[in-house]
């Protein structure tokens, strides 16, 4: 799980152009939106694309997105449970 979280941090930094952040700056349990990483709605769409592109996971019900993208930890949990 730690390896997946580390990989996700790198992918998020690259995909969302968070060049001023390093992996070690990101707390896996910190909120991705709002006061945490401060991501916005476009970033949320980019995370959906990232899940599909890098892990082959398509979120079927958009209502689930809020819980999945709460933090990097919740994203990793979702990937682990859904990756084929």
């Amino acid at each position, binding site marked *: 799980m730690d390896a997946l979280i580390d990989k996700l941090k790198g992918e998020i930094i690259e995909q969302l*152009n*968070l060049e001023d952040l390093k992996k070690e700056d990101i707390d896996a349990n910190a909120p991705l939106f709002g006061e945490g990483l401060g991501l916005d709605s*476009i970033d949320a769409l*980019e995370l959906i*694309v990232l899940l599909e592109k890098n892990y082959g996971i398509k979120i079927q019900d958009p209502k689930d997105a809020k819980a999945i993208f709460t933090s990097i930890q919740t994203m990793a949990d979702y990937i682990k449970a859904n990756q084929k």
Partner: protein
Amino acid sequence: MSDQNYITSFCSIKSSKVCINSHIDYSESSQVSSIDFLKSAYKHYQLAYPKFYKMDSLCKLALITSDLLLKTNKITENYNKEEIAIVIANSVSSLETDVEYQTTIDKNNYFPSPTVFVYTLPNILLGEIAIRNGIKGENTFFVFDKFDAGFMSSYINSLLNNSRAKCCITGWVDFYENKVESFLYTVEKQPGIMNIEHTSEQLTKLYTNQ
């Protein structure tokens, strides 16, 4: 009131050089890539804007140039935000980002990037400048073959002389492959830090000397 308007400050970025009101304020070796130069200038001036790294190159260039312009001429403190217009033009629209977006919609590797997509219009840079500075006046973007001093001076003078704005941030911002240059200036009803009449002839001279 006179119909004469004045260029009161200007800033340009070209060939790895930042010029503010005609003096070179920051430069690097011309060997450095345009995007690396912009990141280096951003750090040098400590512009501190969380969205900077998320922007496309065209917006990065516009944001740095406008930030430096507004640091030297604090029009956002001297005018109501509704009184400041932004009118900018370029020759390549958002082509740099359009090409990048196209690579994400290849039919064999179809993952359209929302982040890239939002920058596939050149006028987004007007919004970035407006959001950064809270500016709420008229904003317009034009695409021309080359910088058209006659049109720009006429259009901006009309805005100010018809009370559609009291001040304008205007100029040229181009970013595509090796065609990278910005030249932004402020126009006001009265002389400011600089005192150049806003006419086609003066503007042509100023642009050519950048």
